[in-house]
């Protein structure tokens, strides 16, 4: 039954990647920008959660909510200050700006609190639950539960609400969306807000699971989430979900087979294979676009 245990671990780690990947894919879908600062929003979320739980002692769910709200605001500020004015310039200019924003956030964080890591408080008791003979950690299940709830919420927002329909319309044809009376700027900001809130939530549950956080912690999960988004088909919301989960499962099995030092390499190998054989990803439309 060990494989079941690994599968659950893989899916719950993967769901963290998926939450981050959603922000990449939604932003790419609407303004065709790979927001390289997204991993740093995830890091900020982890720290907000850390402070909320250890210093302000507000408990897990309120901390999660607070991190999501603050990250949403941060995402909108980043978009308005750094990206909005570049909407009509070349993609490479926007991409370089995104890298600049990423470095800025990382270094501001180091400047204000130092580069040392912090240890997440164990607010959630982690015990092993016996499921069909497999020992499954309750923390994994919690992570999985929170992620799935957030993804269902996102599906609801995107498909059933007015703002969700506006987001899909703008990502397909911004000019036609304007003719419907849709405020394109606000819709883009809403997309950043939602994507960043999900990254913030991912940061908090990442902290709970791995217990160690630091100002550069966003880089590797950020890149992996980006790979997950490409794997699923960048721009596709279900793609990001499935891509993230798949990546988590592959990594976990690579580790479980005794190749844990190859774990990160496996992710990049997947990226290379996808880019060679199916650049549009699992759920992507079949158009090749250069980033």
């Amino acid at each position, binding site marked *: 039954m060990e494989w079941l245990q690994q599968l659950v671990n893989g899916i719950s780690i993967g769901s963290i990647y998926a939450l981050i990947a959603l922000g990449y894919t939604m932003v790419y879908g609407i303004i065709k920008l790979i927001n390289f600062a997204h991993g740093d929003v995830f890091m900020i979320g982890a720290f907000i959660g850390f402070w909320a739980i250890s210093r302000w002692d507000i408990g897990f769910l309120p901390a999660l909510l607070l991190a999501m709200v603050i990250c949403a605001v941060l995402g909108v500020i980043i978009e308005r200050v750094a990206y909005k004015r570049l909407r009509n310039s070349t993609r490479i200019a926007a991409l370089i700006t995104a890298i600049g924003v990423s470095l800025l956030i990382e270094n501001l964080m180091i400047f204000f609190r130092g580069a040392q890591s912090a240890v997440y408080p164990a607010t959630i008791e982690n015990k092993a639950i016996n499921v069909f003979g497999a020992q499954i950690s309750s923390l994994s299940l919690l992570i999985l539960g929170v992620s799935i709830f957030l993804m269902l919420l996102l599906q609801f927002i995107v498909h059933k609400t007015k703002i969700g329909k506006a987001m899909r319309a703008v*990502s*397909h044809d911004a000019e036609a969306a304007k003719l419907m009376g*849709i405020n394109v700027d606000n819709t883009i900001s809403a997309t950043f807000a939602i994507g960043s809130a999900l990254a913030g939530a991912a940061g908090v549950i990442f902290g709970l699971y791995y217990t160690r956080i630091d100002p550069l912690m966003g880089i590797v999960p950020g890149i992996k989430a980006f790979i997950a988004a490409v794997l699923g088909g960048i721009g596709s919301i279900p793609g990001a979900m499935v891509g993230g989960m798949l990546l988590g499962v592959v990594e976990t099995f690579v580790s479980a087979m005794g190749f844990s030092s190859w774990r990160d390499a496996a992710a990049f190998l997947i990226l290379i294979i996808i880019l060679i054989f199916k650049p549009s990803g699992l759920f992507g439309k079949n158009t090749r676009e250069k980033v």
Partner: protein
Amino acid sequence: MLQVNNINVFYGNIQALHDVSIDVQEGEIVTLIGANGAGKSTLLKTLSGLLKPKTGDIVYLGNKISGKPAQSIVKAGMSHVPEGRRVFANLTVEENLELGAYLRNDKAGIAKDMAHVYELFPRLLERKKQLSGTLSGGEQQMLAMGRALMAKPKILLMDEPSMGLAPLMVKAIFDIIRMVNAEGTTVLLVEQNAHMALSVASRAYVLETGRIVLSGSAKELQESDEVRAAYLGGL
């Protein structure tokens, strides 16, 4: 109802409209004809706020609207059916129609207008859960029109609704234009199909390389030698 006074519109350094003036009275169907690249779409985009005129102004229902954002123009009752339909292919037919009513909050009114659109275009009703990208060209044109009608416009701007459609479908679309007009919606119709356009319109303007070169009643233009030679395929 709509007055355009001497507008000049540029794309960067290139001037697309030169001192264009037109007016549209309430209840009319006015058509604007012209060859490829004459500036017809540019004029409609300027009316609906996608482009800003450099000089000149646009007055709609007594208010100056030139320079205002597109959403306030939609809100004021002007809807634009763009060239090439531009339906949201990744959304269903029904969702496209809902987006047409994006600025409205009167649920009952929206439901009533949706039912009316389905009455005008029964084909859309049959396909309401279908992704609009899978519709045929004619059906997409119907959807683009229905979507614009969902905003409850006082004036409808239509850019080449007949483009790429078979004659039977063109006729159906023009019948709907007449019907919508008879229900009280003013129409400004841009067409290359001058024959069809002049047959539904009461007045017409001819645009050539960004300038209005002729205007008059549709009947006059149908009989004018210049128009016949250039736009109605000879005498």
